[in-house]
């Protein structure tokens, strides 16, 4: 019987410990969910900012390109058709881009930065006529390139953020609709189990108390009955009050 009791107590302790663990897990899941929500909000805000900037820049780009195309037409008018010369004299690029990293709420965004390298390989194509239009043309297209590099950065950030936001929201939903309800159900189950065991214990104790009381009453009755059956009890002789002592030979 002692072994059985010991098992019950161990089970009881184990359930208490499980409850503590589950409570800690619930707290963890809730904190995680809140943090992810904050991340999603921060990313979405940046996303909307970038989208606005993209629209703004694309519109500007339309204008810049129009102007550049116009100056190209002017230059062609002044210098004749130099397209073939240009296309065949390609060698090394003077304008390149570098990819740098930016960071928003833990998401790395690629950013393009343009830089110059080397001199103008078309220096010699000043061409006899139309030199001024040609240099204006080059400047316009250089400006267009700068703007387009900026636009490219915005675009890559846009795409990267889009993905990141989707993933983060998926995680938030997973925690909210799967993990937390699961922990809640486990906790409820544990509490019900605890309650039931407590009731069982209580009931058991009451039963034991009753049994003990009954046993005690029964024993008392038995003792009283036996005493009565014996009759008056002969008390053993008291040496001090004795009148005559039989053992004395001489008086």
């Amino acid at each position, binding site marked *: 019987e002692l072994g059985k009791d010991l098992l019950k107590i161990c089970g009881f302790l184990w359930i208490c410990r499980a409850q503590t663990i589950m409570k800690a897990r619930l707290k963890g899941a809730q904190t995680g969910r809140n943090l992810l929500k904050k991340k999603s909000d921060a990313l979405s805000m940046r996303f909307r900012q970038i989208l*606005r900037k993209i*629209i703004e820049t*694309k519109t500007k780009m339309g204008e810049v390109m129009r102007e550049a195309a116009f100056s190209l037409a002017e230059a062609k008018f002044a210098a004749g058709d130099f397209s073939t010369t*240009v296309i065949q004299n390609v*060698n090394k690029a*003077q304008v390149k881009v570098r990819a740098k990293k930016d960071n928003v709420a833990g998401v790395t965004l690629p950013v*393009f930065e343009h830089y110059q*390298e080397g001199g103008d390989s078309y220096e010699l194509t000043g061409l006899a006529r139309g030199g001024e239009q040609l240099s204006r043309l080059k400047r316009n*297209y250089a400006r267009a*390139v700068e703007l387009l590099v900026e636009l490219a950065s915005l675009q890559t950030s846009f795409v990267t953020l889009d993905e990141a936001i989707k993933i983060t929201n998926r995680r938030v939903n997973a925690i909210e609709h799967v993990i937390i309800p699961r922990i809640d159900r486990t906790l409820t189950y544990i509490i019900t189990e605890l309650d039931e065991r407590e009731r069982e214990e209580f009931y058991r104790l009451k039963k034991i108390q009753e049994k003990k009381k009954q046993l005690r009453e029964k024993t008392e009755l038995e003792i009283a009955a036996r005493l009565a059956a014996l009759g008056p009890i002969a008390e053993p002789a008291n040496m001090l009050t004795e009148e005559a002592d039989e053992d004395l030979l001489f008086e």
Partner: protein
Amino acid sequence: MAGRGKLIAVIGDEDTCTGFLLGGIGELNKNRKPNFLVVEKETSITEIEETFKSFLARNDIGIILINQFIAEMIRHAIDAHMQSIPAVLEIPSKEHPYDASKDSILRRAKGMFSAEDFR
């Protein structure tokens, strides 16, 4: 953390390419392969698509500029490009002004903004 320099590629009509080449972006790599494609009336869609895919595969190209009317021809290839680098930018040409509703990137964000934002 800056990476090594990357090129800007161009797929466009003759005027567009000439202009940008004068802007200084043109280069021939070790194998004399250019980072631009001049698209003429005779250029086949297959050739355009092949060039586009080869630009995507090259790791020294960071940005691809492409005239919007040409992008329309290979729209499926552009939409399939999910990565952020190289960035694909659609630019207007002389005959075809920029149309926001056709832009791949902006279509992804459809519903997040209205036509008013473009005015």
